[in-house]
């Protein structure tokens, strides 16, 4: 059996006296969509920030394709093939699609001191990469700010795929999108999976998570409650966990009591 695309072993993260993550282990295989579930404060953000090199774990280790890695920056993670599309998408609205696509990795031509950004190449490649994931971009020199939310999301995903990501982490990719655009983004998630990427998906929307996910990992108050394959967990159960599980049932009872007293 080949090593998982990415693996966390007993990872903990403390911020001062706050334990944000406690002894979390999980594995994500290539060609799998892995959905990360949990209420606010469960540690999802901390976990993806560790995976993407924003934070370093206080304890435990991360393995990419079986090799131990130590990410000191998002750049380190990207170079190891772990690409994260945060909610800001890593795109700058006032800059063109092509300039955004190659930001920090600009192709250059010519010799110093006349070395310049190869814009023709950048435009052509950005355009092709977008066509490859299935979106027809009008003009790679147009500003990213002119694109719709779904289009921006897909530019960010296409960029991650183009630059050789093996693990793609998507933080709430559909939260700000309408039905049609969310469907478009989920199509790219499946596209990425078919290309053999490991996809880690964070979302609050069961209608988005359940159809595309292969496995689910549940986080609660900084600890992992285990990983389940889709076969092992029903949609209703996922909904119950996502909406806060027992806590939510307790809240509902309290509200019912309150309403009864008001009447």
């Amino acid at each position, binding site marked *: 059996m080949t090593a998982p695309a990415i693996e966390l072993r007993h990872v903990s993260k403390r911020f001062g006296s706050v334990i944000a993550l406690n002894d979390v282990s999980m594995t994500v295989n290539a060609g799998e969509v892995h959905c990360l579930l949990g209420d606010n404060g469960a540690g999802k953000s901390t976990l993806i920030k560790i995976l993407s090199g*924003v934070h370093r774990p206080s304890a435990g280790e991360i393995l990419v394709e079986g090799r131990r890695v130590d990410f000191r920056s*998002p*750049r380190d993670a*990207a170079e190891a093939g772990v690409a994260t599309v*945060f909610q*800001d998408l*890593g*795109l*700058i*609205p*006032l*800059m*063109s699609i*092509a*300039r955004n696509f*190659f*930001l*920090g*990795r*600009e192709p*250059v031509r010519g010799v110093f001191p006349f*070395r*310049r*950004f190869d*814009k*023709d190449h950048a*435009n*052509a490649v950005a*355009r092709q990469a977008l066509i490859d994931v299935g979106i*027809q*971009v*009008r*003009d*790679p*020199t*147009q*500003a990213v*700010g*002119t694109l719709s*939310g779904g289009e921006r999301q897909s530019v960010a995903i296409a960029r991650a795929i183009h630059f050789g990501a093996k693990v793609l982490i998507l933080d709430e990719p559909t939260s700000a999108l309408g039905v049609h655009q969310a469907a478009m983004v989920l199509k790219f998630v499946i596209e990425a999976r078919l290309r053999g990427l490991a996809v880690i998906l964070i979302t609050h929307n069961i209608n988005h998570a359940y159809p595309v996910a292969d496995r689910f990992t549940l986080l609660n108050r900084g600890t992992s409650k285990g990983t389940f394959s889709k076969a092992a967990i029903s949609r209703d159960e996922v909904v119950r966990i996502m909406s806060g599980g027992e806590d939510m049932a307790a809240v509902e009872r309290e509200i019912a009591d309150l309403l009864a007293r008001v009447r």
Partner: protein
Amino acid sequence: MPEMVRKSLDAPDERVARTGWLTRLMRRPEAGVLVGLVATFVIFALLPGAKSLYSLQGAMTFLTLAAELGILAAAVALLIIAGEFDLSIGSMIGFAGIVIGLLVTRLGWPLWAAIGTAFMVALVVGYLNGLITVKTRLPSFIVTLASLFILRGLSIGITRAVTGRTQIPYILDNPPDPWTAALFNGHVLTGFFRWMGEMGWIAVKGDGTPFVPGIPMSIVWWIAVTSAAAWVLSQTRFGNWIYAAGGDPVVARNVGVPVARVKITLFIVTACAATLLATIQVMEAGSADTVRGTLKEFEAIIAAVIGGVLLTGGYGTVLGAAFGALIFGLVQMGIFYTGIDTDWFKVFLGLVILLAVLVNNYARARALGERSAS
């Protein structure tokens, strides 16, 4: 800036109507200032005094004014696009001038060494401005406001302590290297202008030499600095990083753009632009003055903003800033030649700034395809 020319790789998307060249032109950040520049030219052409203003001599005068401001505006535009301000450049002009003046008159240094030292000082000042801004994450507005006072105070304090006065005259009296001065205060194309004078095409003095001996070096420097800055911004990787640093520093840093390095470098560039201007002024006047350059920092910011550079960063062009400087020079001389009370210049300036910012906001919305940027 991205060229708004459609690359004809395959059939255009049917969802968008083809944009005409006029629409594409109007979407460029310089569009507003270009309209403003043409309007300014036309207005002064209709006013009395237009003949003198648009004579060769008049043109050289306003072009020289524009050049001196334009050298600063090119550097300042880059820095504003990268999301920072440098309010210390006016004081840097005075400070660089007295560095040159004191080294030449007190220590007998050749001009090239004194000028070279002034640029080294600028490098240190720019580096410190940048480093403090980047490390403390304070607004550069405040950090460089402090440098504004420190540098001006140092200029006056040092000069008075050493010479007992606030001006340093006779800098060009006996320099061992007068050719260095010619690099900054000379003229180019002098042969061509003499020939035009002989042909009777341009006005000549009694001795047959033309009133305008050639194109002043300040204009040559302006063109050189503007071209270099424009090329870096629009054609290089570093230029992409400048836009990114001002557009969204957090995103830029996360994708690996060395935002701190970009900003520090540009603070050095603005300090060096101020020193270049100081050198030109000292070489032309033959003297240095501790109050020289006062308020130039604001004029440079105004020129950049009139030129379509967004004050919040991330958007604008160097060419726009050059047009902004041109409007500035034209209006200043135009008001002088038309005999309008020059007191009104500031009123006009205030109104132009307001108008420019409004136009910029509109242009930004246009660049984003009239969608509200979220």
